[in-house]
């Protein structure tokens, strides 16, 4: 699905990356532990997190992920949004909690597009099989 679909499904506000809404994402990961994201995520995709700091954006950059959704109504400070904008990361913000955010995206088909089972680790839904 596209980043614009993610924003619509999560009733999310686009804080930066308005020019990236047509980009495709194929997987998602919901986690507040960045080390788990670094360990388990395979495909470029969306990170859903309730953690707000600049390391969230750096983690995305390391993983070549292009979209972050801050959940539970958490609003990132301007510096983080700017850093994301400078580095080509779209920032969305939703009032929904983690469970419902992941559930809505999963039900809409994110991470299931290739028809294989999502990876069971770390609450992540990957399009590919895990190791």
């Amino acid at each position, binding site marked *: 699905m596209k980043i614009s679909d993610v924003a619509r499904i999560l009733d999310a506000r686009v804080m930066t990356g308005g020019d990236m809404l047509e980009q495709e994402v194929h997987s998602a990961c919901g986690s*507040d*532990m*960045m*080390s*788990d994201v*670094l*360990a388990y995520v395979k495909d470029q995709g969306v990170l859903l*997190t309730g*953690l707000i*700091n*600049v*390391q*969230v954006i*750096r*983690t995305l*950059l*390391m*993983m*070549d992920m292009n979209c972050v959704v801050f959940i539970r109504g958490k609003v990132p400070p301007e510096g983080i949004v700017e850093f994301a904008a400078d580095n080509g990361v779209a920032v969305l913000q939703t009032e929904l909690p983690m469970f419902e955010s992941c559930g809505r995206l999963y039900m809409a088909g994110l991470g299931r597009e290739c028809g294989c089972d999502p990876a069971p680790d770390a609450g992540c839904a990957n399009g590919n099989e895990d190791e």
Partner: protein
Amino acid sequence: MSEALHYHFDVDGANFSNAGRASVETKKLLRQIGVPAETIRRIAVAMYEGEINMVIHAHGGDADVYITEDKILIQLRDEGPGIRSVEEAMKEGFSTAPENIRALGFGAGMGLPNMKRYSDDMHIDTKVGVGTTIELWYNL
């Protein structure tokens, strides 16, 4: 590695917000040189975990990147407390990071295991009270 390209970065240990700067820069450099994308990602993730470790545990240190025709070496050197048991530190989930670091999204005990997972070869040279040097090797 006498004919290696060499880049040096100071890893600032005073400010957690700065952790990862060297990895972001290295990633850009490797992309300019034309290193394959998957290799770049593995290097960036491993180096990033290393940088985070240096900031959490060792008040920063030095990061050096050496690139030859067929290998890349990332060398991370600090004068921190050293690793008491490398065997334990290599277990997923084992962490000595303080609680405030966990609140920042790290300290889950995945640092060293991730560095091993995302390198072709890893060497740890550590001495308690003296410091730690970690080498991450990649074949091109």
